[in-house]
């Protein structure tokens, strides 16, 4: 489904990601851990094509298509859906307006909105005056309407209370199970692992992948020893 071959990514003048390679198969979820500023979000943004980040080396393939230089909207159309950690506020564009752009199915819009409890927010401007939990639910609402084959989730639980994590976790898990899609999830707290069982896990430290194993093991080790241990980990 997703194959990243040896990419290095620059943000401005600094090299953020160094020789990253990874592979996610169909119906497979990979969980990425790593300290703040290690390059996790940069990886997700590079996969969708955000222009602040330049791929200076390597290639990204999605279902065997080289998407390294594909426009963002094309990447979305072929099945990549991203849930941003801090989406921008856009005045004058209503959530419903964007939803209707993404999906022509009013019933589907209504059902997913109700499920994620965003039905009351549909007439609001995009991400304007929304709480942390509302922003995440609105993000998820949009990407579920996109029906992606690959989910890129950038800390879906950050800034969100327990109740919202539960809604988001359950809905995500249901979608992944139902559609057999793949997912790449960044988590800091690991809470999302209560709802989604990942098949693969990895740790990014200082722009490099230092460890690849099953996510629960990685998470348990991080909880026990912190990220320092990851650097000298046996799977390295």
């Amino acid at each position: 489904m997703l194959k990243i071959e040896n990419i290095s990514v620059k943000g401005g003048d600094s090299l953020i990601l160094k020789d990253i390679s990874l592979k996610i198969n169909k119906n497979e979820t990979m969980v990425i851990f790593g300290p703040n500023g290690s390059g996790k979000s940069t990886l997700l943004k590079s996969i969708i094509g955000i222009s602040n980040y330049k791929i200076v080396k390597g290639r990204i393939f999605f279902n065997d298509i080289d998407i390294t230089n594909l426009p963002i909207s094309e990447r979305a159309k072929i099945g990549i859906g991203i849930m941003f950690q801090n989406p921008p506020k856009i005045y004058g564009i209503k959530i419903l307006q964007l939803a209707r752009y993404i999906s022509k199915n009013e019933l589907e819009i209504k059902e997913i909105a109700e499920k994620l409890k965003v039905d009351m927010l549909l007439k609001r401007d995009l991400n304007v005056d929304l709480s942390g939990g509302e922003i995440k639910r609105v993000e998820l609402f949009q990407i579920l309407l996109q029906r992606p084959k690959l989910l890129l989730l950038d800390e879906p639980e950050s800034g969100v209370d327990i109740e919202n994590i539960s809604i988001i976790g359950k809905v995500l898990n249901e979608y992944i199970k139902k559609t057999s899609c793949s997912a790449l999830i960044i988590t800091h707290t690991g809470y999302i692992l209560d709802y989604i069982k990942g098949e693969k896990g990895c740790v990014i430290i200082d722009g490099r992948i230092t460890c690849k194993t099953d996510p629960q093991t990685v998470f348990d080790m991080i909880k026990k020893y912190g990220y320092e241990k990851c650097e000298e980990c046996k799977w390295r």
Partner: protein
Amino acid sequence: MEIKKEELKQLEIVGFDIEEKERAGSFIQKDKEVVFTRTFQEGVEILPIEKAFENYPEIKEKYYGYSFKKLNKEFPKDTEGGYFIRVKKGVKTLFPIQACLYIKAKKFRQKIHNIVIVEEDAQVYVITGCTAAKETEDAYHLGITEFFIKKNGFLNFTMIHSWKKDIEVQPLSVSIVEEGGTFISNYISLNPVKKITMYPTTILEGENSKFRSSSIIVSYSESYQDIGARCILSNKNTSTEIISRAISYGGKVIARGHIKADSPMVKGHLECRGLIINEKGFIYAIPELETSYRDVELSHEAAIGKIKREEIEYLASRGIPEEEAQSMIIRGFINVDILGLPEFLEKEIKKIVEKV
């Protein structure tokens, strides 16, 4: 005075409804002559200003120039024409009153003086459109308007400008709002113009009175628009909100806002956003807040700049091609929730935006 069908058709772009089906009354002035005035609802009076002064000398005595005197300001007296609109006590109009000021003659200097009186407990919507014929050249428009909103009166006034690149325009207005009164003023400037300077003042004289102003300014290359709104909060529990959106495709916009709290226990908020689309565009936002009282709540926010890359890419990540995302953002930007705008004008604005 006659007006041709094709000319009337042209007035549609500034909100004039030729059929007059959903209007409480109409007024048209072409150059210096009033073409017609009509009213369709009892308690609504629309007259050429000279006629009103003839019929009601006491009105001239009491109101003509009164609002300017309040501000110790002079105003041009060499005007010809203009409308007198009065909505009688307690009368609420179902449909808006429409007024149109139209310039036809070349190099014509149209100078008018309007008076609008909304009596106690009355409620009215007014749409004023100002435009010029295609063949007009180097014309000038001065529009003085004095608004008087009496106790608990309500006025929603929308002014639509659609000029040409060789026309200079100078609206000059002062409004006085009494106790419990509400004045909502909407302004839209759509087409190229040589120069517009306007800085209307509203005085909230009575307790609990309110003023809300919103402007949409679209600015093209070689246009100069110095446009603002000022509100003087001169009694307790008065409040105002002044909002503007300026979008420059190469023209120069000065977006002003001024709230002066002349009384304690008042509230005011200014909001100015500017978007520069074309490299040559220029926007200068000047928000001003002023008071010598402690117990007031005054605030402003201003933001100008180009469309953020992050916003475009965010929409693109939902499958919207970048160009389309950009026009969506522009449309959203000038999509102020303005009350009572005619439907076709919304379409007009959309069309203009989509041209880019």
